């Protein structure tokens, strides 16, 4: 039955080459921890992706309760944390996942750097990877304003002052992020929510797509 369905689709869309590109390849010995335990350093990239998936899923569930306005944001997080069934677990996964994903992407970056795996022909994939790192830091920064507690508010104020200190464009940059040259308030929260939930994830997906396509085209780098 499944075979017939597959053949029916394959006859029309020729999906076998796609499948072949995604999954039908050999994993070389030097990245396989079953052969050399030290190859566990190759796990960090995959674990970064795994935690990113956790972040996407838990974040989707969080938006079912979260309200991005300054009157209700904190109340909605508190309600989720204390009243909603398993709300504490879902918020906990998103909160701790944000830290773990930074740790994993950091270790992955170090692995690639010290192995010199960014050398020709993989320069572009390294650049995309560092951009992914920046997007992750941006997600972390915009994410912790959202609960609208004191930590969020004052850390964001400091962050916006840092943005303001940039020569020439600082003032405009701050206004772009905060929605106002002076006030950190309702507009700021709405903008950070939009950046955290739409803009940066869009950039994240595009960059991850490029990252993975390049890995599949170039293969993993050889042993040292």
């Amino acid at each position: 039955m499944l075979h017939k369905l597959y053949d029916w689709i394959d006859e029309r869309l020729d999906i076998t080459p796609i499948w072949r590109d995604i999954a039908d390849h050999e994993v070389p010995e030097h990245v396989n921890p079953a052969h050399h335990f030290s190859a566990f350093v190759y796990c960090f990239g995959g674990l970064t992706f795994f935690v990113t998936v956790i972040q996407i899923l838990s974040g989707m569930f969080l938006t079912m309760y979260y309200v991005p306005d300054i009157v209700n944001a904190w109340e909605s997080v508190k309600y989720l944390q204390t009243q909603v069934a398993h709300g504490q677990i879902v918020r906990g996964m998103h909160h701790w996942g944000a830290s773990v994903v930074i740790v994993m992407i950091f270790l992955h970056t170090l692995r690639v750097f010290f192995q010199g795996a960014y050398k020709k022909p993989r320069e572009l994939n390294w650049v995309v990877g560092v951009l992914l790192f920046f997007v992750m830091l941006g997600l972390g920064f915009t994410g912790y304003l959202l609960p609208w507690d004191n930590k969020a508010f004052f850390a964001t104020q400091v962050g916006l002052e840092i943005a303001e200190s940039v020569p020439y464009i600082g003032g405009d940059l701050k206004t772009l992020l905060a929605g106002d040259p002076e006030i950190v308030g309702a507009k700021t929260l709405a903008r950070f929510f939009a950046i955290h939930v739409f803009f940066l994830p869009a950039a994240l997906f595009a960059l991850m797509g490029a990252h993975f396509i390049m890995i599949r085209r170039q293969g993993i780098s050889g042993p040292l």
Partner: protein
Amino acid sequence: MQRGKGMKFVEDSRVLDKESRNKIPKDYSEYPGRTEAFWPNFLLKEWLVGAVFLIGFLCLVAAHPSPLEQQADPNNASYIPLPDWYFLFLYELLKYEFAAGDYVVIGTVVIPGLAFGALLIAPFLDRGPERRPSKRPIATGLMLLGVIATIWLTYESVEAVNWEDRANYSVEAVPDVEIDEEDPGYEVYQNNCMSCHGGQLEGNPASGGPSLVGIPHGKEALKDIAVNGVGEMPANMFEGTDEELDQLAEFIISVNEQANGEGEEGESEEESE
């Protein structure tokens, strides 16, 4: 052209320019070894690693509920800002004199810009053919320097924070009490104690005044402390008549009794859910 399953490919999909093949590090396919099919053999192992990782991660989540501080109050002048741990290195950097005040641009733009900029274009700075860290000492040295500096700055920043005081910022640190502003003791409290112990008796980490909710003292002890001080609290903070002192002590005790009573009610409510 043959279509569908079994389609023949002229070349491997990992296309390589034949001419440049000798100039770049060899691909792993050049090394004969015990390769393993990704699907399904290797993917199964990856799933096992992922499952073990997920168990550890969920243990962390269950053991440490994520923190929530009190609702943002832009007028809270005593609050000391602190970013999440992965921005602490930048926060600490901005404390140094050469990267603060008039030179803040150095701390906010120049140093992070150089460091992250160099990271971004690393493949174009480190262009040699060697891959081993020991064969490219400049790249390895600079990266180690960056990593050690980041870890050191983060450590210094964590050391400088008084985590016990910060616990008072948490939402759990505020007992649900309704202050009865009609109470004669409240006016006495307002005039004598509020500047250090806060409008809700919640304490004020900046001035060092602890919370007055959840303290064990009886009426006489409270009166004694108000007059003679205790610990870091100086003597003679209270100025007024003996009658006002009585009212003050009764007011503080009444708030404490209310907080204790409400606390228990709150718990039983949760249990009945």
